[in-house]
């Protein structure tokens, strides 16, 4: 196509027309956009043209290149090949237009990159958090075995004849190991809560009875401190609640413990009110008020994080740990926790919790807790043939000592699943205590093997899981697999014996 024809078609001041031969020599040009000299090589004008030969060899006669930057200006370039081995290059100035496009692209890209970086940072934080929780979880599980031994042995020692000095020392050991046990449970609870793997139980319980028990416990233990602990429950509050009694209690206990720790006055009030109810759900307001003493508000995320580091082993500082748990639990109960200072120098702690209640609301009678001391009085005439399936030597020794100490058990310890399966096939037993895994075989797998390979007698005996895995879903898994009960590590001698006696048909051995 002749250049003058093209110029006619494109007639505008923002265009420049240049014709070249195959070597890139400029044959004709106007100077509309920039200065070019006839008979010079266009390849010297800008590196862009160094590869211009390729457009002569292209199948298409017309190659369009948009948005090409040439010496601080931006052009759309058309390369039109002629039949006589020449070509016309048309430059169209687009600097203003493309600069506007650039501004839009700049904003868009910056925002996408910012978003990507944010997501990445978030992911790294999440991974760190998961690692931390896993670490805390594993670390705490490792601590359970030695702690079980310290806790139960000191409890056993206290039941023996000791002189006054010895008794004081052992009591101190027991007291501190119990505290440590609670902290450990808190840490594990928190790591479970942070991993969102905790599911709440949904069982009916008597709210007033629970509150009375809590009140009684605190009132009795604080009698000597000249401190009144008052409990008020509004009349319209449902008698029975359907929910997780232990977790509900945990929140209230945490509040009262906080109040006791910081209280400088002479009374602490526990108040339960109803906010509202809808269908079978009630929103309860739990208030714990200490009339003198400021409780620091550790609800901010930062403080809770710092609390999860047990500062230099200072047990007192772990108030925040239980508080974090209470906060997480409240969230699980579709509620929230608040701490507010009062004008009189005291503090009010509030939990608003959403709980279910039965349509026919009436007081339910709960089973009375058996006295732990009963364990000591049980004397069996026939020994309970017991298998302890456990490969951790500390835990083996703990269980053995506790059982032997009663004189009621005849024990055999197995550390190899094969030997265990052999034994339950050949000999008759009355009870199996099984750790969560033995030589890397999981207890749930092992119980199914026992149910398959044990002799007929042993297929019917109670098998108890003795484990650190004690979330509601873990316990449900154990129950489903056929375990009669679950003993939570770390345990005391009384806890272990109580569960065993509960699950044995004691009449058979008396």
């Amino acid at each position, binding site marked *: 196509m002749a250049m003058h024809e093209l110029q006619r078609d494109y007639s505008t001041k923002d265009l420049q027309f240049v014709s070249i031969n195959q070597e890139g020599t400029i044959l004709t040009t106007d100077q509309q956009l920039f200065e070019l000299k006839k008979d010079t090589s266009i390849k010297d004008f800008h590196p862009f043209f160094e*590869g211009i030969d390729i457009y002569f060899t292209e199948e298409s006669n017309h190659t*369009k*290149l*948009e*948005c090409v*930057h040439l010496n601080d200006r931006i052009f759309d370039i058309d390369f039109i090949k002629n039949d006589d081995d020449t070509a016309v290059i048309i430059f169209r100035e687009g600097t203003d237009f493309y600069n506007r496009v650039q501004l839009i692209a700049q904003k868009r*890209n910056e925002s996408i990159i910012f978003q990507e970086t944010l997501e*990445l940072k978030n992911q790294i934080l999440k991974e760190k958090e998961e690692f931390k929780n896993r670490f805390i979880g594993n670390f705490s599980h490792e601590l359970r075995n030695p702690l079980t031994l310290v806790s139960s042995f000191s409890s056993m020692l206290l039941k023996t004849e000791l002189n006054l000095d010895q008794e004081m020392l052992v009591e101190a050991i027991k007291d501190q190991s119990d505290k440590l046990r609670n902290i450990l449970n808190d840490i594990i609870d928190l790591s479970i809560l942070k991993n969102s793997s905790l599911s709440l139980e949904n069982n009916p319980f008597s709210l007033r009875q629970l509150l009375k028990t809590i009140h009684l416990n605190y009132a009795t233990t604080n009698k000597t401190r000249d401190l009144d602990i008052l409990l008020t429950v509004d009349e319209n509050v449902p008698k029975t609640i359907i929910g997780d009694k232990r977790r509900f209690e945990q929140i209230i206990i945490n509040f009262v413990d906080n109040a006791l720790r910081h209280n400088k006055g002479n009374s602490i009030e526990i108040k339960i009110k109803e906010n509202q109810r809808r269908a079978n759900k009630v929103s309860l307001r739990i208030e714990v008020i200490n009339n003198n003493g400021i409780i620091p508000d550790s609800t901010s995320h930062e403080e809770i994080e710092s609390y999860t580091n047990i500062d230099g082993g200072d047990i007192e500082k772990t108030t925040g740990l239980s508080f974090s748990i209470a906060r997480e639990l409240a969230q699980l109960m579709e509620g929230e926790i608040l701490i507010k200072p009062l004008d009189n120098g005291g503090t009010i702690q509030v939990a608003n919790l959403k709980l279910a209640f039965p349509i026919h609301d009436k007081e339910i009678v709960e089973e009375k807790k058996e006295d732990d001391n009963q364990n000591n009085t049980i004397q069996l005439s026939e020994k309970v043939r017991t298998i302890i399936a456990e490969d951790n030597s500390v835990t083996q020794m703990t269980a053995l000592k506790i059982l032997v100490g009663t004189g009621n058990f005849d024990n055999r310890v197995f550390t190899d699943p094969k030997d265990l399966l052999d034994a339950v096939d050949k000999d008759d037993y009355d009870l199996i205590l099984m750790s969560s895994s033995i030589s890397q075989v999981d207890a749930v797998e092992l119980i199914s093997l026992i149910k398959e390979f044990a002799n007929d007698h042993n297929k019917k005996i109670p098998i108890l899981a003795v484990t650190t895995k004690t979330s509601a879903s873990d316990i449900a898994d154990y129950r489903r697999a056929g375990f009669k009960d679950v003993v939570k590590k770390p345990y005391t001698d009384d806890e272990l014996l109580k569960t065993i006696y509960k699950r044995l048909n004691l009449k058979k051995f008396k």
Partner: protein
Amino acid sequence: MISKKIVIVGHFGVGKTSLIRRFVEDVFSADYKVTIGVHILKKTVHVDHKEVNLILWDTEGTDDIEEIRKAYLLGTHGFIFVCDVTRPATYINIESQKNYLKDNFNDVPIISIGNKSDLLPKGSISEKKEELDFLDMLVSAKEGNNVARLFEKIAKLLI
């Protein structure tokens, strides 16, 4: 003198322009300026006693290589595929992107590189290298690490 057209491709914000500026002008600016269209720069390198003109096409960043204007890629002798080692989104689809280039450009050499190696935490480079072993090189336009080596490498592949 031999001239070779090298097209630099990759996601936006990975540092294609910075890489070329470091190589051609030996400068670096931390300010991010989005490239639209294409910038063409030139630098002569000496490889195996030969002078090679590298004509470097700095293209606009795209999520998908197929979005690049086809006309830019005509007559390409080599590609440099640039990723940002700190942004997985920029290298997650690298294999399919490379395959597209191989299929459509007669198997011209492609060097894939991870830029911004200076942002990797100290001590984690060897670990990260293993994780990014699908890349041919880690470079830093900011600190200049491996930049000259990269262009020498591609020049050698092309002569």
